[in-house]
């Protein structure tokens, strides 16, 4: 059990509080987008390209339009404006124009009175495409003579990044051991449980659009709706209902959301668009297939001397988040260990597949995997303990990395101690029976991007608090609670700061008509940024309340505080004032009070001056270390994860219950990627696009996870807190691969480590061993 740091009180009870919307969810009261009242709404459906790459020669919707019951049909002709998450790389249309670039790309859409009519209408649309050669892998897309997906991107390279910090050649020269590895990580998908859906209503009388969708960042959606529909922002209202998971899938505005709005305007009414699971997979925007070539230098005693890393990401057909992902993959080589020199070359490649995007651990996961796997192999070669190697390379906070990332708090050493002890590492490693093994790895992640994409000069977060005559405090935030518990975090931050029970706080989130703009749920920014803004707002409100209470009680405001919902003197007097009475007093001459709190990242936290230097910059990194124990069946290649020990430095656990949930979720998602999750395309057709073929682990596959919270108390975090939802993910896969190596002395270079790949590695090992036992002349 950890204790609250001095001056910081735990919410009651100390173990944390259940999510404030938890009861709605478990009782089924919570309404997700597809559950919203949609009587009378038209049914939207999308026609998708059957080919991977081609020119649209003819798209005739006449017969579909004429079908009885069809109210609107839209095509690329109805939107000439591109959209995209990055202002510098918007090269996608909501409905294809001129060309189609992946199988499943939206081409046209209909709104009809029911699903059957909509399906019949789609079948009546005539699409003629002249096929072009399609590139389904990066090698083919980069080959000389490859057909370009986008004319302005030679070699199909969306972005090449070349960064050198320190002197890598000198670093490798001082190393006692230099090794290289080529690691391949399959593309994975968020596989959030709620399929995509949107409900749009256009009122022709007022020319206003109301959009309810599964968004993680309603602000981005709002911007893109205005851009693509050429509407004034003020005429659009975006509401986020309950959202059944995001993991990055819903950060960008998505094509179906804009298409739904287009249909609603064309139909002058309400349109409900529910995507199938297959369409949800095709919408994609997840972690790309990534090939990593990594080279590390180590001294005999385990000190890192240099790192060289080349990353090739198969980005899919459009830009999306690609530039950020390829920059993250290099930037977050830094910030975990002290490395004197780092060279990074990254290539984001266009291919004729659904566009990739952000996914939990954005950009960092596959490079971290390769780095940790190679570090583990080198430690074994040098006869060093993997924990000792990590301890040899720790940072000392506060510091700045070579690429100008600020590290203000650093609990990695404590994390290492925790899991080393809990797992019984020292007594057990090397003493397990054949087929069983222990492995470990570390990881980290940002607490919000210090420089947001749409940099406007506004604060990074704003929270409004409304205090009314009834004594209720309503927190208004644009932060999107997508199941991670951000609304509960806001309630705790406000309640703790005011000194009132959490029940007094009501949180209203994610409605552009009432809540302040927020940059939304991405890059683990909400606790750090919105949490700080909530505390700031609560402090301002408390000041007003204390002034009113002091007046009423005839006390000096300096001596007053609010504890447990009662205002009283911090000295010995017995006079107290209830919160409701203090609120009434504060409203005299003022009426309903609304105060605002903000948070802004200072410019010095916003990264280096080099190109792309803002990516990876953050106010605080979370740090994690984990140990994975496996059993491997040599006859079938099956890996069973027996147990996981994970320690995460989240700065301070504002809600320990939710923190544990997020740590377990990250570990579990890392386990899925490590063991079985993989998107698979057959000539560009998504063969994995169901929850049967896309294997997420079930409860039967899930091991006990022992999560430990480490609190380094970040100097800038709210109550000292940092992010907690992503940092533990990237460490799982390398710890698993290390455990398999420990169990059977096989090196796995591919993720996921499915039974067939393990078998291939075992066969290769046997062949290697046979060759080693043959006379030297026999082996080539």
């Amino acid at each position, binding site marked *: 059990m950890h204790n609250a740091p001095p001056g910081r009180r735990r919410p009651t009870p100390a173990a944390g509080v259940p999510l404030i919307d938890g009861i709605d969810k478990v009782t089924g009261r919570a309404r997700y987008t597809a559950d919203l009242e949609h009587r009378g709404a038209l049914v939207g459906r999308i026609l*998708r390209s059957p080919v991977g790459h081609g020119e649209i020669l003819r798209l005739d919707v006449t017969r579909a339009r004429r079908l009885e019951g069809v109210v609107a049909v839209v095509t690329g002709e109805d939107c000439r404006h591109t959209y995209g998450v990055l202002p510098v790389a918007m090269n996608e249309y909501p409905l294809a124009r001129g060309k189609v670039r992946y199988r499943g790309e939206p081409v046209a859409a209909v709104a009809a009175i029911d699903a059957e009519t909509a399906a019949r209408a789609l079948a009546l649309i005539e699409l003629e495409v002249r096929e072009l050669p399609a590139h389904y892998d990066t090698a083919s897309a980069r080959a000389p003579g490859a057909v370009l997906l986008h004319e302005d991107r030679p070699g199909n390279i969306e972005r090449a990044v070349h960064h050198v910090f320190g002197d890598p050649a000198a670093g490798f020269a001082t190393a006692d051991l230099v090794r290289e590895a080529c690691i391949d990580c399959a593309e994975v998908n968020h596989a959030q449980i709620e399929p995509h859906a949107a409900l749009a209503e256009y009122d022709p009388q007022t020319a206003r659009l109301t959009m309810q969708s599964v968004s993680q960042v309603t602000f981005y959606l709002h911007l893109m709706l205005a851009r693509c529909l050429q509407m004034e922002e003020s005429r659009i209202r975006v509401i986020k209902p309950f959202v059944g998971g995001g993991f990055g899938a819903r950060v960008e505005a998505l094509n179906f959301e804009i298409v739904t709005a287009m249909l609603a305007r064309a139909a002058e009414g309400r349109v409900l668009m529910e995507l*199938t699971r297959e369409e949800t997979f095709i919408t994609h925007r997840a972690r790309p297939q990534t090939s990593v070539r990594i080279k590390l230098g180590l001294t005999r005693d385990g000190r890192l001397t240099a790192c060289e890393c080349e990353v090739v990401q198969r980005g899919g057909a459009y830009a999306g988040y690609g530039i950020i992902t390829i920059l993250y993959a290099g930037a977050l080589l830094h910030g975990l260990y002290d490395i004197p020199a780092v060279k990074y070359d990254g290539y984001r490649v266009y291919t004729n597949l659904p566009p990739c995007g952000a996914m939990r651990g954005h950009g960092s996961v596959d490079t971290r995997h390769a780095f940790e796997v190679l570090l583990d192999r080198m430690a074994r070669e040098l006869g060093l303990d993997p924990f000792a190697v990590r301890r040899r390379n720790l940072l000392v906070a506060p510091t700045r990395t070579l690429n100008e990332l600020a590290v203000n708090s650093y609990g990695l050493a404590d994390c290492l101690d925790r899991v080393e002890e809990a797992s019984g590492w020292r007594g057990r490693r090397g003493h397990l029976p054949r087929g069983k093994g222990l492995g470990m790895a570390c990881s980290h992640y940002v607490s919000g991007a210090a420089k947001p994409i749409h940099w406007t000069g506004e604060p990074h977060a704003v929270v409004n608090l409304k205090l009314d005559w009834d004594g209720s405090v309503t927190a208004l935030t644009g932060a999107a609670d997508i199941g991670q518990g951000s609304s509960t975090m806001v309630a705790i931050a406000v309640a703790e700061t005011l000194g009132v029970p959490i029940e007094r706080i009501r949180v209203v989130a994610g409605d552009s008509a009432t809540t302040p703009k927020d940059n939304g749920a991405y890059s683990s920014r909400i606790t750090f940024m919105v949490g700080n803004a909530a505390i700031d707002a609560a402090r301002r409100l408390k000041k007003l309340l204390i002034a009113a209470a002091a007046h009423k009680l005839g006390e000096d405001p300096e001596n007053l505080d609010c504890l447990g919902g009662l205002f009283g003197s911090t000295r010995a007097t017995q006079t107290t004032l209830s919160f409701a009475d203090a609120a009434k007093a504060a409203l005299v001459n003022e009426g309903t009070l609304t105060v605002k709190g903000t948070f802004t990242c200072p410019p010095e936290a916003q990264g280096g001056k080099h190109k792309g230097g803002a990516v990876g910059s953050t106010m605080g990194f979370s740090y994690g270390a984990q140990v994975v124990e496996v059993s491997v069946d040599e006859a*079938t*290649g099956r890996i069973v994860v027996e147990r996981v020990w994970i320690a995460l430095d989240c700065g301070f656990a504002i809600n320990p219950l939710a923190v544990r949930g997020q740590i377990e979720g990250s570990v579990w998602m890392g386990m899925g990627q490590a063991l*079985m999750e993989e998107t*698979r395309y*057959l000539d560009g057709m998504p063969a994995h696009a169901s929850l049967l073929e896309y294997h997420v682990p*079930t409860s039967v596959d899930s091991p006990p996870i022992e999560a430990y919270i480490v609190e380094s108390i970040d100097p800038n975090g709210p109550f000292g807190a940092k992010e907690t939802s992503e940092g533990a993910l990237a460490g799982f896969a390398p710890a698993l691969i290390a455990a398999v190596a420990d169990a059977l002395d096989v090196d796995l270079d591919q993720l996921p480590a499915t039974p*067939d790949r393990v*078998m291939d590695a075992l066969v290769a090992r046997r062949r290697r061993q046979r060759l080693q036992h043959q006379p030297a002349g026999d082996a080539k």
Partner: protein
Amino acid sequence: MTAPLPPFRVLRPQAIEAAVAAGAAPGGARYLAGGTDLLVNLRRGLLAPAVLIDLGGIAEFADIRCTDQRTRIGSGVTLARLATDPAVGARHPALRAAAVAVAAPGHRNLATIGGNLCADTRCIYYNQSEWWRRANGICLKSGGEICHVAPEGKRCHAAFSGDLAPALIALDAVAEIAGPGGRRRIACADLYAEDGRAHLQLGGADLITAIELPAEPVRSGYLKERVRQAFDFPLAGVAVALATETGRLSMLRVAITGTNSRPFLVENTAALLGRAVDEELLGQLDKLVQKQVRPMRTTLTPAGYRRIVAAALARRLLASLGASAAASVA
């Protein structure tokens, strides 16, 4: 959204004869038991029968009866019940193990033994949405001209993926069929043909009414390999039943699912009889299995792995059942 079901009528006969009569009516009808296979396929547009005949109203389908001679299991008995019935578990461990290995608890509460035996064959090119199959070029099984798994060949290679069939084949079970011509009995091994498009040797109106297993005790087991440990079809599934006399094999039946268009009994195991279960014997069974399975590219997992793992499972089962036989002799 979940893709809408095609329109159909539902009939709920209360007796077997009425069900068979409805099944023989023109226009296309399908029997519906638990629906865990059929409804998914309907939603994907893989078939569109005009009539579904719900068998849930036929009382005798839900019976399990154990006599000294045999175990009789009504075709409507759910997998959840097979997995927990003490008599079935004691007499026929392979059947119990196979039932537990199917999908997840929710499916097992609905799915039936008859439905599992009649499950459609599966292929990564076939079990996809209508958009997918059209975009990719309709395959042989969907009514097209070509099999994407083996474009040179003339037949469909979709793999049978039911878990119960190999257990029942290894246990020498017999299926009782009611059809337009009356009732008949077929060995479970003979229910199937090696053709992914027409793997069931049953007429459209034929209905499996019950399964009968001999009661004499044999050692049996079922092992299944899959990507994840629940909610997944077999990459390969192997059932073994054996008997020993003074430590030597006196009977051996090995049946396999997931690798071919039919579940099948491994042939030429007679050569293994009369011998003790040792490494050499296990190696021979390994070879027999590797030679007889025909995995094709019907799953995302490579076919070569399915071949190796089928043999590994057979070997493991024979070793453990043989060892427990030896232990009981000692």
